[in-house]
């Protein structure tokens, strides 16, 4: 597939070591367009929009800001904790703005599944429907995500 210069730039920024240590694509060999398309079809199947997922994740992250040390229990069944480290990250899609390095860890006490995401993840899902490539450290599988956060 032929790429525009912007698409090439975006793909380059997703490589390891450019913005993050291991990049955004992980072991996924697909083009980021294909990753986004595949994940979008999962969302359609569940009838959930990317916007709703992002709002939900943001709700958990902001709920933990008050407690900066140790986890909090939200809505009785979620144990959530956010860790903030120094610095900010840009978006690989060349959006303006920087996203704080926050890592939120959520455990659904009913299912026992643990998920974690960063501030940048929320932006990527909301604005680009991008859940990162398979095998990436911060890959959020939409299927798993939707089952565990709503």
């Amino acid at each position, binding site marked *: 597939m032929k790429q525009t210069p912007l698409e090439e730039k975006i793909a380059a920024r997703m490589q*390891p070591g450019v913005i993050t240590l291991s990049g955004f694509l992980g072991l996924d060999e697909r083009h980021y367009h294909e990753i986004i398309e595949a994940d979008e079809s999962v969302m359609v199947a569940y009838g959930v929009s990317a916007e709703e997922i992002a709002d939900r994740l943001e709700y958990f992250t902001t709920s933990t800001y008050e407690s900066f040390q140790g986890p909090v229990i939200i809505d009785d069944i979620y144990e959530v904790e956010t860790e903030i*480290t*120094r610095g900010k990250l840009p978006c690989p899609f060349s959006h303006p703005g920087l996203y704080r*390095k926050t890592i939120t860890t959520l455990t659904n006490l009913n299912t026992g599944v643990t998920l974690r995401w960063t501030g940048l993840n929320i932006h990527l899902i909301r604005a680009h429907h991008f859940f990162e490539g398979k095998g990436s450290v*911060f890959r959020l599988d939409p299927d798993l995500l939707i089952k565990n956060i709503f």
Partner: protein
Amino acid sequence: MLLQIISDIGASAAISIFLALILVFAQKYLNTYGDCVVDINNKKQITVKGGNSLLNTLNDQQIYLASACGGRGSCGACKCKVAEGGGPLLPTEKPLLSPKEQQDNIRLACQVKVKSDIKIHIPESIFNIRKFVSVVESITDLTYDIKAVVFRLKEPAKIDFKAGQYVQLETKPYGKIKQTTVRAYSISSKPEDDTLVELIIRLVPEGICTTWVHNFLQVGEEVNLTGPFGDFYIRDTQADMIFIAGGSGKAPIKSMLQHLQVVGTNRKMTYFFGARTEKDLYLTELFKGFEHVFPDFQYIPVLSKCDDAGLYCARSGYIMPYIKEVLRDPQNTEAYMCGSPGMLEACRKELRNLGVPDNKIYFDSFG
């Protein structure tokens, strides 16, 4: 034809060379100001050859004043204070200087020529910022995810900084990563040790620079540092001091306390360190030791997760409730904080509620 071209070029070259020679001789016989001494901030004297503009003279000494127009006197970026020896104010400078600046002897460095000994004042920060080549002298584990790295300075061999300031560290390509990255870290060694820089670096998950420092950096390797930067440093007053730190935020506070140990102080000081569990505590002996060094100093680790048998469980949970205990006179208290934004914000709110003036709360946010 060819001959014609060559002879034409020869003729024009001859004219140019003739003029150039005249200029060279003129330079030699007219532009003789000998060696001049430039005194910077009453701190450093440098001997330079006179006749050049102040801007270029400083550039040659690796002191870089801002300049956007390249010394043609049209941008006004290279302002600096010339206390003595700058000659009268030039008409080329006047349009770019306010009456107040003219009164304060502010000049444009690109227009002032160094013709005699000259005394200038430039912002300390510009004067001190340098690029350092250093060698890693030691890497020590402080906790499971925090390391202290000592860099021995090679070129230049000395750094002049204030306790609490930070430097930028430049990584080298490693593993899958093909480019260099620059990150800022607070200096944790004291300013009196001016031939080395110690940094306390916590491993950030997925961090490009911290992963390099933790897993790839070797003793003996050459590393580039730039600095010092930042306005997080101790104000020279007699007010009580409260230090608050979390995580690797101990670094600037360590530098401050070790500096105070050298210069000596009677100020009342309290140091809160917020951590999760006992295994996140580090350098505890050093900080406990300060209680014997200073007449009025207390080190209070506050753990959020405490098993009851722990040594430091007298206070647990958040830091905020304990600030009140040590506050003597809120109006006369300064707070120095370094840590995560959430913790800083909560502590700032608490300090404000207790009556500590906003302009006495200094912090170095991770954000």
